[in-house]
């Protein structure tokens, strides 16, 4: 009883750390986290779906390298607040606006990393696969992409972590996941809410990074075998 009174006291006292906040607003926190996660996941997946063909195009037609790489770098320069605002007349106040902005940001990192990975595939590996009768598509899917995977995953990790952080700015249009809670918290000087949402955001980035690292290890068993070989 006394413990409970002391706990609800931290809401009244507006403490930074408040267990009562976690308990009484857990629904709100979960909703915001879920929104944050799906906006991030959708942005990164769409970003990947756009970046892969762009990287393949640049590799097949090197004269597109300048415009494609230049344009994606240019997009990265635009401030996030401005990016979301410029997309406003097109999308209105919607999650699609935030996702589109985040996709455009992820392209810089993803296109560069996928391209670097593909270009690092040794020419003799390609020749060997062609000699075994692999067509261009099979060569890409079964040989080149798996070999480019470490570079691709490195890019994916950077893109995901920065997308988690950038999603908060979506609070501008009310679609910022945990950013919405931070925004509300600043307006009402609610310390526990701002700190909790900020910490959750950083945790989310760390968890996403670890998950992707795990996925990379699962998807590239040969690199572990090679590392073990080098050690022995």
């Amino acid at each position: 009883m006394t413990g409970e009174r002391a706990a609800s006291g931290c809401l009244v006292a507006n403490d930074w750390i408040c267990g009562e906040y976690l308990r009484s607003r857990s629904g709100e926190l979960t909703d915001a986290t879920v929104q944050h996660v799906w906006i991030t996941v959708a942005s990164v997946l769409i970003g990947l779906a756009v970046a892969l063909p762009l990287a393949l195009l640049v590799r097949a037609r090197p004269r597109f390298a300048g415009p494609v790489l230049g344009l994606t770098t240019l997009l990265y320069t635009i401030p996030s607040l401005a990016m979301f605002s410029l997309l406003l007349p097109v999308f209105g106040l919607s999650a699609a606006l935030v996702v589109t902005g985040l996709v455009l940001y992820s392209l810089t990192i993803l296109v560069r990393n996928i391209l670097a990975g593909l270009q690092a595939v040794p020419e003799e590996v390609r020749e060997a696969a062609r000699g075994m009768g692999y067509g261009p598509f099979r060569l890409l899917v079964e040989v080149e992409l798996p070999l480019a995977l470490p570079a691709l995953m490195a890019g994916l990790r950077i893109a995901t972590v920065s997308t988690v952080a950038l999603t908060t700015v979506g609070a501008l249009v009310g679609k910022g996941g945990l950013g919405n809670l931070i925004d509300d918290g600043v307006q009402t000087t609610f310390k526990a809410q701002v700190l909790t949402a900020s910490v959750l955001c950083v945790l989310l980035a760390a968890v996403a990074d670890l998950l992707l690292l795990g996925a990379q290890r699962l998807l590239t068993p040969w690199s572990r075998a090679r590392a073990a070989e080098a050690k022995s």
Partner: protein
Amino acid sequence: MGGVPAEVWTWLTTGSNWSGPSGAWHRLAEHVYVSGVSLLLACAIALPVALWLGHIGRGGALAVNISNAGRAVPVFAVLALFMLTPLRSAGYLPTVIALVLFAIPPLLTNAYTGMREVDRSVVEAARGMGMSGGQIFARVELPLAYPLLMTGLRSAAVQVVATATIASMVGQGGLGRIITAGFNTYDTPQVVAGALLAAGLALLVEAVLIAADRLFSPLRRTAAARTAAP
């Protein structure tokens, strides 16, 4: 939708939108001032540390980890946290501290990597010629690390200018204020006009730094001489 570009143009060409304490000129000045101060402070902190660590060849993991951690932390969250502390009433200080924190990782990592990627045999050769540690640093390592150092400076500068817009979401000054003020009054032309100004400034800073990089590169003359030679 068709009317928006015209309305944006009207906003941008209306003199009253540019004058006064919440006009575009004042916001632009705030933005440039806060960004400039933050970038200078970040350079003063990060570059000596990175160059020294690179020179003695230690702290590589630190440089990389700081850079990775920097990406995971939302700027907006950091600014929001500052605004709930006594710093709130300290003028530009919360924004400046947040911007310095976010400019340090690219500066530190790039300067350090640049120093470490200098060919060791070149450094050994310099030492063999009798150069002291200080001479090697100033005449061999620093000029060779320059391109990566400038890359770091460029991404830090662009990041600072871009991030300074977010300061407006917690009530601080800068060009972002035009955007957020437009949001609060449902004034889409003003929102887009503010966004264009902010994006334009970021692109301008990028362009100026690319030009400066080309002009002042210490290897430029050597490279030019080499291409000119038959």
